[in-house]
């Protein structure tokens, strides 16, 4: 089993210009009852996208037809709160492949990486430039280059590098999966267990 290989792409972006977006907002607990990993995208940001009657809230960016693309852009401390991986599943299932923010909560960042969803941490200044660019042109394009570890605003050519650890980068680029890897080193793990006794 593997995750999809991550290749360089250019896309528009959807801006959710709020800080401290917690995983209860990304996917409320009442939608965590599935026993299979599918369909979570329908309930992504459920209570911000839909009102109590189930009608779409037009002002929420995901409902705003001006925005489209595979990049979600959000304010700092994205993904805080609950460890539910359903948050990463919902974002990926909706069709995003990248989340850009100036700061990610730890568990969310790991969960995203384990699902081929790339969290790109940029500076506050660059994040502001990205939001400004989308305000200027809602169809603004951005290029995500994992190999060079850069996020580029296409119209201006302005670019910022991002960090990712070498192991996870290799996993994303090759579609490797940690479970298969860990299972493959069972001998080492058994030797470790024996050494502790």
């Amino acid at each position, binding site marked *: 089993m593997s995750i999809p290989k991550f290749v360089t792409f250019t896309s528009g972006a959807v801006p959710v210009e709020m800080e401290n977006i917690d995983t209860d907002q990304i996917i409320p607990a009442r939608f965590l009852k599935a026993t299979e990993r599918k369909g979570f995208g329908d309930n992504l940001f459920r209570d911000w996208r839909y009102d109590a009657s189930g009608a779409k809230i037009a002002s929420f960016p995901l409902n705003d037809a001006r925005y489209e693309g595979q990049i979600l852009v959000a304010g700092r401390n994205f993904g805080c709160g609950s460890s539910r991986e359903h948050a990463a599943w919902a974002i990926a299932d909706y069709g995003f492949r990248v989340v850009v923010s100036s700061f990610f909560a730890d568990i969310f960042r790991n969960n995203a990486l384990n*699902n081929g969803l790339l969290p790109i941490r940029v500076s506050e200044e660059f994040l502001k430039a990205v939001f400004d660019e989308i305000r200027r042109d809602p169809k603004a394009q951005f290029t995500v280059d994992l190999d060079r570890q850069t996020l580029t605003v296409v119209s201006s050519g302005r670019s910022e590098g991002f960090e990712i650890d070498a192991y996870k980068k290799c996993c994303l680029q090759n579609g490797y999966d940690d479970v298969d890897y860990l299972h493959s080193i069972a001998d080492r793990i058994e030797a470790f267990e024996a050494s502790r006794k």
Partner: protein
Amino acid sequence: MGRTLLDKIWDAHTVRVEDGGRCVLYIDRQYIHEVTSPVAFGGIERRGFGVARPSQITATADHNIPTVDQHLPIEEPESRRQVEALAENCARHGIEHFRVGHPKQGIVHIIGPELGFTQPGMTIVCGDSHTSTHGALGAVAFGVGTSEVEMVFASQCILQTKPRTMRITVDGDLRRGVEAKDVILYIISQITASGGTGYFIEFAGSTIRSLSMEGRMTVCNMSIECGARGGMIAPDEKTFEYLRGRERAPQGADFDKAVARWRELYSDADAVFDKEYRFDAADIAPMITYGTNPGMGMAVDASIPADADPKALEYMGFKAGEKLLGKPVDYVFVGSCTNGRIEDLRRFARLVEGRRKADNITAWIVPGSKGVEAAAKAEGLDKILAAAGFELRQPGCSACLAMNADKIPAGKYSVSTSNRNFEGRQGPGARTMLAGVAVAAAAAVTGRIADPRDVFDL
């Protein structure tokens, strides 16, 4: 250079280090529950793998279950299916499972320490961010995602970057009416809801030492609410006495040997932490939150800060600069992995004894486990509560995340001893104010936000 407690435990569990610094970390115990495990079971089965070390996994149903009439089938079909899937998966893979109604069932973070599974020096994970609770016993314990649950199923290891270290020292005697919950709400209000991100916290200082094991669990439980991977407290005599005789702790001579090992678990005097904070217990009052993340907290008698987040205040229906004291409350929730232990129920029962629940209040008093429920009944707490108009419900996560029927209606105000006040956390549109047991008790008997130091003889 000296090593921190985290260094000692982490390094002793590192099987190997990958390029880029990720560690293959060996996990001594994994706890699982019905919400974050089914996809992980599906994952290993699709790969054709078995569960590598079923005896090192403990399962319980807690998130989705009703807190009344637990002998009846769960009404909600999706919740029932998830709970049934856990039972089936555990049976198929030989994992010990405490199902609803079992005398050892309860919230996963309550039963782990209560049954003695959680021990000093261990590495512990669970697909639940409040796994940090177990750090109170001197374990490295943290929440993980479902992919990582699957990794542990497949290999008893996860791949993890070692967090940076942070020490939070609180010294001095707690003021009148102040409890462990107030200490952690105060800390988070000072360092913010993201101040601990990237770090693993060690709580230290005389105030922390003075707390009971239950209180220490309350503090460590909420480490994640400032973004930290986990929080821990070096084990001491209190820890050892807490574990002595617990069912799954070492027994007899083995226990003494274990204690000798556990005594080595402390940060060396010359250990250097990546970040340090110091707080004075004298600055901590009974706390309450006014906003929509756990960092938006203040003393219960304080005014909402002038610069409070307007979006949060709009959701809560509050104004910057106003006091919360005297504002009406609709619901009081006592329970959760934060404040659902026997000490919490004792405190609540003692405070409301001889008084009456206010008519405008709906109160849910939910024990954290069957063990807590049994102890509460054995001590007669259920009768004290009943005489004051409160019902002791059955154990589960309940209104903390409202996955079951215990939902706060839209627009209603809840004073909750749980851990998160996010928008909609306790039900769509619910307005949650986090607090300790005493502030919850004061709201329960007065029907309003009140200072427990004025309401009770504290």
